[in-house]
C-alpha cells in the first residue's frame, strides 16, 4: 500500500510551483533476478517522486537490493533512537523458497511499505540516510552497504558496551544487587508488558492466518481432483445422469481455480499485514532495549558523578594540587551526564508520541486488512454459491426425464 504523505511537514515550498504542497512519494517495483548460482539476488527499482528541495529533481530512479534496505534500517535505528523504525521483511531461511514468485512479490510489497512509512514519518523523512538511499548511485550504495554489513557488524563502541554490561551485571550479582537498573515508571512498565504480550498474541493469529491460506489451497486441490473424478464417472454413466456428473465436474474445477486465487489474495492482504504487525512490535522491542540502555548509561554517569563530587570535596579540603585536574574531569563528566540525560529524555518523549501514532496506524492497517479479508471471503462464498446454483436447473431437468 502506497501512502502518500498525509500532513505537510511545513518545509519550504518549491519556488517553481508555489501552490503545490510538498510531497515525497516512493515506490518499489520491478523485481529482477541478477547474478548466478549462490550469489544470485533480486534487485528492485526504487522510484522517487518529490518536489522537496533537498532532492535532486522531480523524479529519480535507482536500483537497490535487499541489503540496501537493511542498511537504511540500521542507520535509522542508530540515529533516531526512540522512534519506532518501520520493520523490514525477514531474510529467507529456506534457499529453495528464495526465488519463488510468491516470495518475491511478498517481499517487494513489504519493502514498498517500509520505504513509504519512512517517507511519511515526520522525523524520519528528513534523514540524510534516506536521501542517500533514494538517490545515491549504485557504486556509492555498494560501498556504504559493504562497509556497514561487513563481518564486524557491531561497532567497537558497541562491543565495549556489551563487555561493560556483562561486567556490571557480574559485579551487581557479586555485590548482592539484585536487578539491573531499570526505570520505575508504572505506565512505562505497563506499556512494556503490553508490547511483549501483544507479540505473543499476534504471532498466534498470524500462524492461523497462514494455515488458513494453506487450507484454501488444499480445498482448491481437492475440488479439482473431485471434479476430474466426477467427469470420469459421468462418462461411464452416460445419458442425462452422465451429463449431470460432467457439469458438476466442470464447476468443481472452476471453483478450484477461484480458491487458489483467493488463497493468494489472503496471503498478500491478510497474512502479510499480520506478519508486518508482528515485525512492528519486534521493532518496538528493539527501541525499548535502546531506551533501557540510555537509562542505564544515564544512571551510571550519575553514580560516577556522585563519586567524583565526593572525591573533589575531599581534594578541596586537603588543598591537594590535583584539585584542578579533578575539577576539569568533573566538569566534563557533568556535561556528559547532561547529554546522556537529554538523550534519554528525548527517547522518552519520542516514544510517547510514537506509541500513540503506532496504535492509530495499526488500527488503520489492521482495519484495512480485515476489510479485504472479509470482502475476499464474501466474494469467494458468493462465487461458490453462484457456481453450484447454476447447476440446479440442469439437475431438475435430469430428474424429470
Amino acid at each position, binding site marked *: 500500500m502506497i501512502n502518500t504523505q498525509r500532513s505537510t511537514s511545513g518545509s519550504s515550498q518549491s519556488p517553481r510551483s508555489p501552490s503545490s504542497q510538498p510531497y515525497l512519494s516512493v515506490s518499489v517495483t520491478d523485481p529482477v533476478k541478477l547474478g548466478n548460482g549462490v550469489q544470485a539476488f533480486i534487485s528492485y527499482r526504487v522510484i522517487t517522486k518529490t518536489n522537496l528541495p533537498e532532492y535532486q529533481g522531480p523524479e529519480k530512479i535507482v536500483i537497490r537490493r535487499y541489503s540496501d534496505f537493511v542498511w537504511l534500517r540500521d542507520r535509522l535505528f542508530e540515529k533516531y533512537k526512540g522512534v519506532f523504525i518501520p520493520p523490514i521483511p525477514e531474510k529467507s531461511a529456506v534457499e529453495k523458497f528464495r526465488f519463488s514468485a510468491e516470495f518475491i512479490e511478498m517481499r517487494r510489497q513489504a519493502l514498498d511499505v517500509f520505504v513509504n512509512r519512512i517517507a511519511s514519518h515526520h522525523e524520519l523523512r528528513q534523514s540524510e540516510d534516506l536521501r542517500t538511499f533514494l538517490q545515491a548511485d549504485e557504486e556509492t550504495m555498494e560501498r556504504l552497504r559493504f562497509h556497514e554489513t561487513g563481518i564486524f557488524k557491531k561497532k567497537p563502541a558497541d562491543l565495549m558496551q556489551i563487555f561493560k554490561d556483562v561486567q556490571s551485571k557480574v559485579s551487581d550479582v557479586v555485590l548482592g544487587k539484585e536487578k539491573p537498573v531499570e526505570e520505575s515508571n508504572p505506565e512505562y512498565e505497563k506499556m512494556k508488558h503490553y508490547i511483549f504480550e501483544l507479540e505473543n498474541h499476534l504471532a498466534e493469529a498470524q500462524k492461523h492466518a497462514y494455515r488458513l491460506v494453506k487450507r484454501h489451497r488444499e480445498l482448491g486441490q*481437492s475440488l479439482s481432483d473431485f471434479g476430474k*473424478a466426477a467427469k470420469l464417472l459421468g462418462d461411464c454413466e452416460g445419458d442425462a445422469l452422465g451429463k449431470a456428473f460432467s457439469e*458438476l465436474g466442470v464447476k468443481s474445477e472452476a471453483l478450484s481455480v477461484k480458491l487458489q486465487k483467493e488463497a493468494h489474495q489472503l496471503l498478500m492482504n491478510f497474512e502479510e499485514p499480520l506478519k508486518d504487525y508482528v515485525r512492528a512490535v519486534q521493532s518496538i522491542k528493539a527501541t525499548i532495549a535502546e531506551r533501557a540502555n540510555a537509562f542505564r548509561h544515564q544512571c551510571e554517569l550519575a553514580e560516577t558523578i556522585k563519586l567524583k563530587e565526593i572525591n573533589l570535596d575531599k581534594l578541596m579540603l586537603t588543598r591537594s594540587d590535583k584539585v584542578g585536574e579533578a575539577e576539569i574531569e568533573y566538569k566534563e563528566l557533568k556535561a556528559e551526564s547532561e547529554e546522556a540525560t537529554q538523550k534519554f529524555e528525548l527517547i522518552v518523549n519520542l516514544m510517547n508520541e510514537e506509541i*500513540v501514532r503506532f496504535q492509530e496506524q495499526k488500527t488503520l492497517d489492521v482495519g484495512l486488512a480485515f*476489510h479485504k479479508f472479509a470482502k475476499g471471503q464474501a466474494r469467494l*462464498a458468493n462465487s461458490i454459491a453462484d457456481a453450484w446454483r447454476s447447476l*440446479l436447473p440442469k439437475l431438475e431437468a435430469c430428474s424429470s426425464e
Partner: protein
Amino acid sequence: MMGSDNQGFQEAHVYASREEMENLVLDDDDTSSKSYSAYRSATSLSPSILVTPADSDPLLAPSPYRDLRSPNAPDNNNNHSSYIEPPSYADVIFSPFDETNTGNEINGVESSNQFIDSPHSSASSSGSEYIKITVSNPQKVQETSNSLVPGGNSYVTYLITTRTTIPEFNGSEFSVRRRFRDVVTLSDRLAESYRGFFIPPRPDKNVVESQVMQKQEFVEQRRVSLERYLRRLAAHPVIRKSDEFKLFLQVQGKLPLPTSTDVASRMLDGAVKLPKQLFGESTAVVAPHEVVQPAKGGRDLLRLFKELKQSVANDWGGSKPPVVEEDKEFLENKERMNDLEQQLSNASQQAEALVKAQQDMGETMGELGLAFIKLTKFENEEALYNSQRARAADMKNVATAAVKASRFYRELNAQTVKHLDVLHEYLGLMLAVRSAFSDRSSALLTVQTLLSELSSLQTRAEKLEAASSKIFGGDKSRIRKIEELKETIRVTEDAKSVAINEYERIKENNRTELERLDCERRADFLNMLKGFVVNQVGYAEKIANVWAKVAEETSGYANESS
C-alpha cells in the same frame, strides 16, 4: 442470527481452549460432532445420524435399494425428494445453530429428516410395505462350554428389533438376539440360495476378534455396520422376503440355519471321499441337487478337479467349449460394470479428500477466530487509547464471523458426508455385482463340464457297443459295463438339465438385477447430486452473508487508504 452477537462472543470469550471451543460451537455433544478426522469414521458414524430415535423410515433415506413397488415408477419424486426444495436454499434445509436443539444430532440432519417424514408417510408408493430394523444393546456373553482358552470365550450379542407391515412376516414387531457369527451364517446361506442376485455384502469379520472386542469403539462400529447391512437386505425386494432373512429376524434362541462349516473341514471331507470316487465305490457323478451349487467350496473334490480341467480346456484348448457366454448385452454390461466400479472407487476417494479439506478449513477458521477473540480481550483489558478500543471492536466482529463461518463449515461437511456416502454405498455394491456375475460363470462352467463329460461318456458307450457287437452272442462283461455306463449317462443327463436350468435362472436373475441396479442407482445418484449441490449453495450463502456484514462494517478503512 446467533442469539445475539454479544452473547455468542461472550460465550466464546470465556473458553480459551480449543476443546471448549468445540463444545461451544456445537449445541450437541455427539459422537458425530467429535471428529471428522477420517471420512471412515464419519461415514461409519453417519448412519447413526439416520438412526435417530425419531423413527424415520429407512426406505425413504437414500439407501441403495429402493423399493420400487410400481414397476413403472418413472418419476419417483416422492421417494427421492429428500433434499430438493424450493427457491431459497439457504433457508430450507438447514436450521441454523441458533435453534436450541439440544440432545439431538446436528440440526441440519434433524430437519432434513423432517422433510423426509412429511411428504412420505402419505404418498409413498411403497406405503403398504414397511420394514425397519434396529440393532442395539450390545451385551457380552461368556461362553461356558469347553474351550482351549482359559477364562472361556466371550462374544457379543446384539438386540435386533424389527418393525414391519410386510405380510410375509408373522407379526408386526419382534426382537431377537444374535451374534456376529449368525450374521455370517445368514450371509452365506443367502449367497447359496440367491445366486445371481446382487446381495449386499456383509460387514467384515475381524481376525483378532476376541481381543478387539474389548474396545467399546469396535463394538459400536460393528453395531452400526450390522444395522446398515440388515437394512440393506431389507431394502432388497426379493431378499427381504426370503426364508433365511425371516428366520434370522424372527426365530428366538439359536439361529435355525445350517452353519457354514470350515473350508478346512470341507476339504477334509472331500479328501476322504476322493479315493472312493476314483475307485468307483462312491458315485463319481455329480448328483443333481449338488449341481445347483458351485463346485468350489463344496465337498466334492472330484467335481472340483473336473471343472478345473474344463476351465483350463476352455482357455487353452483348441476347440470351443460346448456352450459359451454369447449374450452380447451381458458382456457389454459386464464391461460397463467394471468401468463403473473403477470410476466409483476413484470418485469415492476424491470425495473423502474433499470432505477432509472442508473439515480442515472449518477447523482452521475456528482457530483463527479464537485467536482473535483472545487478542480482542487482551486489547480491551490493556487499552490506553481509543484507537485500541476501535481495533478491538473490529477484531471482535471478525472473530465472531470467523467462528460462525467455522460452524457453518462443520455443518456443511456433516451434510456433505451424508450425500457423498452414496458413492461409497454403491462402490460396496459392486462387490455384490461381481459376485453375482461369478455365480453365472461358475454355473456355466458346471454346464460345460457336464456336457463334456456326457460327450466323453457317450463316446465310451459307443466304443463298447461297437466292440461288443463284434463278438457273437455278446460279451457278458462288456454288456454289463454298457448297462452301467448307460445308467451313468442317464444320471449325468439329469444333472445336465438341472445345471442348465440353474444357469438360465441365474442369467435371468442377473438381468433383472442389472435393470434394477441401473434404475435405482441413477435415481440415487441424481438425488445425491442435488442434495450435494443444494447443500453447498445453502451454506455458501450463509457464509457469504456473515462476511459481507463484516466487510460492510469495515468499509470505512477502504476509503481511507488510497
